[in-house]
């Protein structure tokens, strides 16, 4: 994007609630923002270290439950619960990273799926803590001084700030030594190891940061919908994140953002025309088509086009 284009985009994003008054559209944009954080988080693992986590909904759900429980049971404020949620999810990420130290590819995928499966069963069966399938209603809306961020317009800015911070954090990370170590690990692990990259350390680090970001998205989700149930662990969430990252362009910074906006807005736009099952069917077909025709994703394809012209 050119410099001018970037300024226009930033201006549009900053003034959005003023010209997009419909609460429905604002809702779609807020969900796109939450998914953007999730896609950025998954991209750290999938795009930069090359490890696919199919249990990412677990970190999202852990964040949502932690934040809801901290505010409901311990009456923490949202501003303390949000980092708490990120920390709890990050801890889970550390656990998975340590567990899966030597596991790559399909085995890593399986450990992450299984972890999400176990956590989801715990959320359904541990009635005392999670209220089981009934979920936790009445999660409070965040408050900022005297104001409640109860309105969609106010919540939009909260989510926008979270997306911005996550994006900057990811950019800072992947452009540093650490990010180069991630890519080295993805491209050729033995070579990376032979030049002194501590593979274990960096993989665990990627898992922790990725999980913490997903946990933060979970907290944002919990205080937005004000209700948390075992549905936050739905595999559909993980699939959506994977599609967003793969379609947008894994291993790029803008890719997850483009994917998140596209795959939140597109299904909503199609909702009038088709049912939810058709949408999911289309997701599946789309994933197959992407692998065949656009294996690197939209953003890399666009920049290749621009270089050619």
């Amino acid at each position, binding site marked *: 994007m050119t410099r001018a284009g970037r300024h226009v985009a930033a201006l549009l994003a900053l003034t959005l609630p003023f010209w997009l008054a419909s609460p429905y559209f604002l809702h779609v944009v807020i969900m796109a923002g939450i998914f953007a954080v999730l896609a950025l988080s998954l991209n750290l693992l999938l795009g930069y270290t090359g490890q696919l986590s199919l249990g990412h909904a677990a970190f999202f759900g852990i964040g949502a439950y932690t934040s809801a429980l901290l505010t409901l049971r311990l009456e923490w404020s949202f501003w303390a619960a949000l980092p708490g949620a990120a920390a709890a999810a990050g801890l889970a990420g550390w656990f998975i990273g340590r567990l899966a130290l030597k596991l790559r590819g399909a085995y890593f995928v399986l450990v992450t799926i299984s*972890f999400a499966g*176990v956590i989801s069963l715990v959320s359904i069966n541990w009635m005392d803590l999670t209220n089981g399938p009934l979920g936790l209603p009445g999660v409070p809306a965040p408050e900022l001084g005297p104001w409640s961020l109860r309105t969609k317009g106010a919540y939009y800015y909260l989510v926008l700030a979270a997306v911005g911070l996550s994006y900057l954090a990811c950019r800072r990370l992947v452009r540093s030594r650490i990010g180069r170590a991630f890519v080295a690990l993805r491209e050729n692990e033995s070579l990376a190891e032979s030049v002194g990259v501590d593979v274990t350390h960096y993989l665990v680090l990627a898992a922790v940061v990725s999980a913490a970001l997903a946990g933060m998205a979970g907290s944002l989700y919990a205080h937005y919908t004000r209700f948390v149930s075992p549905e936050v662990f739905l595999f559909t969430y993980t699939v959506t994140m994977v599609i967003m990252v793969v379609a947008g362009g894994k291993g790029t910074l803008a890719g997850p953002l483009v994917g998140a906006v596209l795959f939140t807005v597109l299904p909503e736009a199609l909702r009038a025309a088709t*049912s939810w*099952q058709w949408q999911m069917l289309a*997701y599946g077909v789309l994933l197959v088509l992407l692998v065949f025709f656009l294996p690197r994703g939209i953003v890399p394809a666009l920049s290749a086009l621009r270089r050619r012209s």
Partner: protein
Amino acid sequence: MAELLQHLVNGLVLGGTYALLGIGLTLIFGLMNVVNFAHGEFYTLGAYAAFAALGLAGLNFFLALLGAIAAGALLGALCEVSLLRPLRRESIDTTMLVMIGVWIAMQNGELLVWGGVAQSIPHPFPTAPLVLGPVSVAPLRLFVLLVAAALIAASYLLIQRTKLGRAMRATFQDAETAALMGVRIERIHTATFAFGAALAAAAGALLGSIFLVYPSMGDLASLKAFSVVILGGLGNVPGATLGGLLLGVVEELGAGYVSSGYRDAVGFVIIIVVLVLRPAGLFARSERIG
């Protein structure tokens, strides 16, 4: 004691079908280097094929079972030829993404065709259980166990005694050398995938007649198949057989003595623990097939 025996018998019935799922998956995994996340969807396909053959085509139960197996083999072959063959030179991650796409598409296709309501497959067996000493088994469950055992035996015969089986083993050991010796690798891949899908479809039709048939039934089946493969080791057919039986029994014991809410957690925990402690599988000597 009687209770324990009862759990063991129930566990073996489940375990036999888990073994069918696992054998197919381990062959596909070991031989083609494809992580078949759509495996559970062939299981679902088998269940719905049997349901359709009985309800719509009016076939009898046994023919419907054969129909389910044929449907699994056919769609498996189609899937391999159209999606996996063009990607044979791609990395394992690429084919994995494709199979995840197939999984989502098939499941929601089934949801569209059949709706979300669970269906049951009618069967001709009497519902009164057979009482054998301290344990009682429904005749249907006994039939399921016998068919699963027969199919497992047939798989062994196919792999060990037929020309196709020999070509499969050769491909597993060294695809390039096998190709030089005149093995048509592409055909072996198609046959392997169709065979694995057919076994999964059989498992779906069998368990679908005991339990219920619904579009998302394949998700847990996939994960159980993966835990069986991980228990048994990659490409290890005897390992998958033992792993399947073991998983069935452990699940049943866990549901009986610990908590039925966590029944399905057994498979997940097995995946994590075995992968972390013994990544080559419990019964592995080295990577092998047959």
